[in-house]
């Protein structure tokens, strides 16, 4: 019996089933807390026409940015992009479709998607270009817009530790969008720094419960820093 053992041995198994045209939800904020090896595998697979949902789109040669080179991404739903020149080029030329979404709305859309909530109301974006075409409704005298949730065929996340049941713990601000992304994928794959035995993670302090995770793979991370600022 396979039971709840979600650990896979190689990246091919980890991303098995990802196909052209699918929606891929990715955790991470900037280059922090991104599933580096899973992204590299998608590049290797050369899966195309992807709709990618992620707060950012990496840089030219790292993170989701590496999927831009081969034009694997058809559309990106993000809150802040354009930290790389290939992105700019494709966006300007119109070969890359960009849907900008406020950061909090994006996080909530993923959470709602994972939680079976198809839509919610938020004040964020009311009266701005983000509200175009969206229903406006007043509650308690204040106008809000309706935002629909996001789910995807695949979600890829980066965690610090996992057990083989798929329970995940994140480290510091590398947590960011990963917990919400993990809930919103039909198949969710977690790339982690360390795999521990069930029971080693404190049950009350598991950030993502195994029920949301389908596959776990141990990765090696470069953890590139986008803006190294220090004090003396």
């Amino acid at each position: 019996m396979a039971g709840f053992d979600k650990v896979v041995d190689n990246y091919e198994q980890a991303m098995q089933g990802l196909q052209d045209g699918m929606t891929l939800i990715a955790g991470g904020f900037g280059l922090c807390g991104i599933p580096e090896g899973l992204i590299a595998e998608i590049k290797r697979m050369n899966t195309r026409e992807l709709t990618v949902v992620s707060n950012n789109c990496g840089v030219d040669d790292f993170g989701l940015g590496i999927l831009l080179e081969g034009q694997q991404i058809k559309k990106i739903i993000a809150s802040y992009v354009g930290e790389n020149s290939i992105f700019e080029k494709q966006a300007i030329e119109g070969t890359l479709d960009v849907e900008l979404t406020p950061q909090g709305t994006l996080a909530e859309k993923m959470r709602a998607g994972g939680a079976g909530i198809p839509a919610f109301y938020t004040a964020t974006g009311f009266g701005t270009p983000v509200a175009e075409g969206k229903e406006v409704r007043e509650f308690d005298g204040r106008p809000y817009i309706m935002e629909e949730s996001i789910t995807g065929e695949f979600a890829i996340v980066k965690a610090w530790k996992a057990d083989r049941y798929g329970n995940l713990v994140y480290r510091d601000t590398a947590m960011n969008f990963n917990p919400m992304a993990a809930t919103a994928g039909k198949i969710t794959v977690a790339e982690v720094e360390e795999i521990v035995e069930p029971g080693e993670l404190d049950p009350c302090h598991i950030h993502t419960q195994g029920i949301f995770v389908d596959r776990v793979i141990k990765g090696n991370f470069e953890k590139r820093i986008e803006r190294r600022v220090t004090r003396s």
Partner: protein
Amino acid sequence: MSLSREQIAIRVSQELKDGYYVNLGIGIPTLVANYVPDDIEVMLQSENGLLGMGPYPTEEEVDADMINAGKETVTAVTGAAIFNSADSFAMIRGGHVDLTVLGAFEVDQQGNIASWMIPGKLVKGMGGAMDLVAGAKNIVVTMTHANKKGESKMLSECTLPLTGVNCVKKIVTDLAVLEVKDGAFHLLERAPGVSVDEIQQKTAGKLVVPEFVPEMNV
């Protein structure tokens, strides 16, 4: 004399109160952290998921997993909390952050703010700015009163795509401190040596000037 970036930050720091949870945007707002008055405590929220943001790290402390909303390496203070982006914006959108300070391209007399998009230029995105202006209890905008061509950024109506509507409460520029209410900019203070006339001239929107306009203490 118009204020320096540091002086704007110093003036904004006078808006802080003991026990405030504060979110500081990129640019001048970030500098405010350096001028928190000694007799109060504030806690900084970074919208990528950190409550209790500390100073930049030393070389030895640098950790790729510890960054702020500007993607810069950062530290956490003792007693900080780290959480996911949905929880972070629950704090922001639920009105739990006491004050947010952010920059802008334009503000108008209705309290509307434009800060993220200039048509014709490449749009990088709004990040968390729309959530912050819609959610924070108090919003202070920092910017220069006019652009480099001398054109006012304090308008009767914003010309650029908006970040949020009816949300800006206070503005600290290089020339003045203004409150936005009842469809007008109310002049509260002027930069040392700056005349009310100059402020009037550089304010395109409706400006309400009281009889006495004190100089800022910066």
